[in-house]
């Protein structure tokens, strides 16, 4: 993770395969909710954020509903049921007892790149 910025509504209007400008550099942005086939909880601009991550030499912006914070955790591997699910490297237990999934940034970048040629625009 490099940084977290506000997601501006204008960027989202272009749909999938959008970019944001970050201090003079363009960063490709992927809507995580859309990538995972979920309905986003907040509308674009309503406090959604972009988490800028680095995967190898590439930078990638992940659009998320909200940022809960950062913490040091113990990463637990996933069981045989979920080992093959793309995009996750493990899971951890949060302070309130809930389970949080840990994203595999490199796999996400690959997943997003693989999706792009299909031009899948959800209605």
């Amino acid at each position, binding site marked *: 993770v490099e940084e977290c910025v506000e997601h501006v509504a204008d960027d989202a209007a272009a749909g999938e395969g959008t970019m944001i400008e970050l201090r003079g550099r363009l960063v490709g942005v992927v809507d995580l909710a859309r990538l995972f086939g979920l309905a986003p909880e907040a509308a674009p601009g309503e406090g959604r954020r972009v988490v800028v991550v680095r995967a190898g030499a590439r930078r990638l912006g992940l659009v998320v509903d909200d940022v809960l914070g950062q913490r040091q955790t113990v990463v637990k591997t996933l069981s045989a*049921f979920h080992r093959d699910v793309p995009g996750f490297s493990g899971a951890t237990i949060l302070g309130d007892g809930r389970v949080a999934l840990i994203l595999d940034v490199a796999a996400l970048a690959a997943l997003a790149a693989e999706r792009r040629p299909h031009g899948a625009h959800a209605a």
Partner: protein
Amino acid sequence: MSAARATGDAAPTPSAFGTMTLLVFRLDARSLALPVERVHALLDPPPATAVPGAPAIAPALVNVRGTIVPLVDLRRRLGLAPAVRSAESRLVVVETAAGDETLRLAMEADAVEGVVEADRAGVVAVPEIGSRCPPEAIAGALARPSGLVLLLDPESVFAPPSTVAGTPGTFFPREGTRP
């Protein structure tokens, strides 16, 4: 009377003689049972974390006393309609053998009826026709005064999809394939 138990190993297969101890629970009006040796804990259902792109029979993760455990959708595995949680719902934490590793997982029961001792000789085979559940998941049936109890085969019913015919990549939902 229990002279039939010659060896000390308590095989969970219902084919041997002697008695077995079962945890009996309910899904809808159906009574189902697992060998108690396979049951690790009974808990109030905790909040689950959905795993996007996960196989439908294991859609989420739960925290069981500090360990992260896959939540198996037994209803889907058995071809039953989804249920709503009630005050009687219980999380059943199960341990099965998957290959050479022990797999701990959780499933939700509508209610837990209790632990019963049953005579292995009373277990009857379930006809493939007439049972709506997948035949490999059911090890047999037991007639009890309260009705028929289906004995689940834990290794089969809780087998991870990756060890069966799962091809990696098909688990990830494309547009419109999510049930």
